[in-house]
């Protein structure tokens, strides 16, 4: 394999690994802050115990998200130095801003939150978790604006053999980035809510801490449902953007080969890439695809055949990832609606089949997250910056395939090990359940 493929593999592997931990951080930080707010305003000890229990899982997960994030920042220079040189005038700014604005705030106040229970006032402690979680959310916004620039470059001019910024505001207000941000952020909230529901269901099945876990479940069910609806709505808005600005990605997502008006959407579709058509094409909803793409029943969709093969993304993985992600999203919508309704009933903790289903549903949003990024990044190929710079032209010139093979091996072993340990610890502490005694905190902070 050549340096480009190896570097792509390494970026994908490290990026997807990073993304196992980040969505939970985004969601669980805010939800933990919410629980602590409830505790501080009501003085109800159960909210404090919830804060401590879910906060602990948040922290175990947070550690790995942070350390694997450094890899992402370094890799632009390590493996993609031609890219970094070519677009650094625009792309470097959000990365630096992310660090000074968000990372400092996040890391400093996480430290205050972990170690500050007995050192600062209740309100100051509450403020520290809010600052940290808002900072994680802001960092997601900034990095997604940077990613959006790779998908839909704006506010630049090609000068001095590179892309130079000429409109910072355009980069900051790139609608592609904002829609993607809300889509991604809410997907993280949904993921965290499903984790809370799943872990709560596991304990309810064992009749452990009924009140604690019913309350957690009820809260998470509402978060999950609202967030999933938001994910669907922004997903629809995002598809419109993609259809307009990245026609090859859109065509690959839908496996649309011919350019036509008023295209329908087939529920059963199997692409045949070699013959440039779909070998199975059944259960078509007329005009649906045109409606989804342009909110216009007669909109023209550009098919893959309108583009030379070397400018098409890998169709099969993009298509399958998109379909599967959408399917998982629909499942989550139904499951969270059911969760809201059922958790309000008296006999909720006796619905064993449903509770078991919710335990098994924990991986669903995780899978959807990974698939979403596959669609976003695979669908952009062969471009690293859509329509501007090819991935194959962006790789570092001074590195050899041996170097990248070794680093890829290193990352695989190291990440594999750390990932296994982290998941082991998450499961251990999730199963252990909440601490009974929180008097040490209440005694110092005072009641009410």
């Amino acid at each position, binding site marked *: 394999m050549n340096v480009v493929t190896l570097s792509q593999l390494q970026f994908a592997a490290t990026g997807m690994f990073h993304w196992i931990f980040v969505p939970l951080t985004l969601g669980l930080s805010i939800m933990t802050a919410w629980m602590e707010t409830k505790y501080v305003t009501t003085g109800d000890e159960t909210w404090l115990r919830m804060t401590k229990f879910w906060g602990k899982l948040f922290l*175990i997960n947070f*550690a*790995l998200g*942070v*350390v*694997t994030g*450094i*890899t992402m*920042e370094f890799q*632009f*220079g*390590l*493996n993609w*130095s031609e890219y*970094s*040189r070519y*677009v*650094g*005038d*625009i*792309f*470097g*700014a959000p*990365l*630096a*801003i*992310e*660090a*000074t604005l968000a*990372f*400092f*705030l996040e*890391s*400093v106040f996480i*430290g*205050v939150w*972990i*170690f*500050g*229970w007995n*050192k600062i006032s209740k309100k100051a402690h509450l403020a520290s978790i809010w600052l940290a979680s808002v900072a994680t959310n802001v960092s997601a916004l900034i990095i997604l604006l940077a990613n959006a620039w790779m998908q839909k470059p704006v506010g630049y001019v090609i*000068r*001095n053999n590179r892309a*130079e*910024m*000429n409109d*910072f505001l355009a980069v900051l207000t790139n609608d592609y980035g904002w829609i993607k941000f809300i889509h991604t952020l809410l997907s993280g909230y949904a993921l965290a809510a499903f984790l809370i529901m799943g872990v709560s269901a596991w304990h309810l099945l064992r009749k452990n801490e009924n009140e604690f876990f019913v309350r957690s479940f009820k809260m998470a069910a509402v978060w999950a449902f609202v967030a999933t609806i938001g994910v669907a709505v922004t997903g629809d808005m995002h598809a419109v953007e993609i259809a307009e600005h990245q026609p090859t990605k859109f065509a690959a997502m839908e496996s649309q080969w011919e350019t036509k008006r008023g295209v329908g959407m087939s529920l059963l579709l199997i692409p045949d890439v070699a013959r440039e058509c779909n070998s199975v094409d059944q259960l078509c909803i007329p005009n649906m695809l045109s409606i989804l793409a342009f909110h216009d029943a007669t909109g023209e969709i550009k098919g893959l055949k309108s583009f030379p093969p070397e400018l098409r993304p890998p169709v099969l993985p993009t298509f399958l990832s998109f379909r599967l992600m959408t399917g998982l999203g629909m499942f989550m919508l139904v499951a969270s609606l059911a969760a809201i309704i059922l958790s309000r009933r008296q006999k909720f903790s006796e619905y064993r089949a449903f509770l078991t289903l919710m335990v098994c549903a924990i991986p669903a949003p995780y899978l959807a997250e990974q698939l979403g990024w596959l669609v976003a990044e695979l669908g952009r190929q062969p471009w690293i910056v859509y329509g501007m710079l090819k991935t194959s032209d962006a790789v*570092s010139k*001074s*590195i050899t395939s041996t*170097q990248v093979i070794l*680093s890829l091996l*290193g990352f695989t072993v*190291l990440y594999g090990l*750390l990932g296994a*340990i*982290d998941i082991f610890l998450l499961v*251990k*502490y999730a199963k252990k359940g909440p*601490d009974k005694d929180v008097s040490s905190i209440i005694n110092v902070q005072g009641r009410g």
Partner: protein
Amino acid sequence: MDISVFQIIWFVLWGVLWAVYFMLDGFVLGTGFLSGILAKNDTEKRILINSVGPVWDGNEVWLITAGGATFAAFPTTYALMFSNLYSALVLLLFALIVRGVSFEFRGKLESDTWKKSWDMAIMVSSFLPALLFGVAFGNIFKGIPMKNDFAAYSYSYDGTLIGLLNPYGLLTGVLFVLLFAVHGSLYAAIKTTGDLSKRGSDLANKLWLPLLVVAVAFLGYTYPATKLYNNYLNAPVLLIVPLIAVISLLLVKLYTVKESFHMAFLFSCLTIVFVVFTGVTGLFPNLIPSNIDPASNLTIFNSSSSLLTLQIMTVVAAICVPTVICYKIWVYRVFRARVTDADIVGNPEAY
């Protein structure tokens, strides 16, 4: 204002970010790789880890910011520095990753093997960055074998990982290790109590002389090995920078002997900052020189971003950096007390 004004502003900021990073992570790395010597049992190990617990992550962000600032202000330097030094930086990355999770994971399981493994991980993953940063900066001071044609946008590099381990690079590596060792020992002295604190101050006392010897050797060897002294010969007033570094280092010893360890730690901070400034002042206007072709030097003029980007980033830095410094000072004040047994036992959140 002319673009060169902003290029100089960002050069200064670049030096400051690195200096502050080494000052802050220096004591975390130092207490980390010395933890096997300083702490004699599990409780002492936990005290040591918890003494850096609330701040280590925030300290590491200075590194991420230094990297981000290099990317935003000098993208060509960022691109070539990271890709040319690929293998060394990947190793560094592995070490920083392991160090970060070690703090979080160590206390999460009650098992001797588990804790001993993470203790070892903390020592190795703290030592490696200290050494590698030194080696990397030694090579940056010296220049790396790259040939760049800025007009034709063609860049090449002819070095290897082993090539970085040249005598001057290694000497700078040892210098960094000793700087951080004294720094970390003093941190342990002022942040813990009893035997642990005593061991910290004793170790700082013992390591000071080797540090002085290596520092003198470094200053001497820098003359034949690098071009850093050119700027000082052209403008002797700049010699105040290395002078402050040397005086600070002497004051570290003075205050250690007087058992005024907070002062000693303060001057250890100054020593590290001014050692970095000494190197950076000598580099100007280069960010990374080439040791085979002066025309290939990466300078602040040939590798910077456009005027607009530099202006925007200056505004961002002017707002964010002072804010960060303010709340970081607040945090250091909140956690100013020494860490004791009681803190560890009483706090289930402690590492």
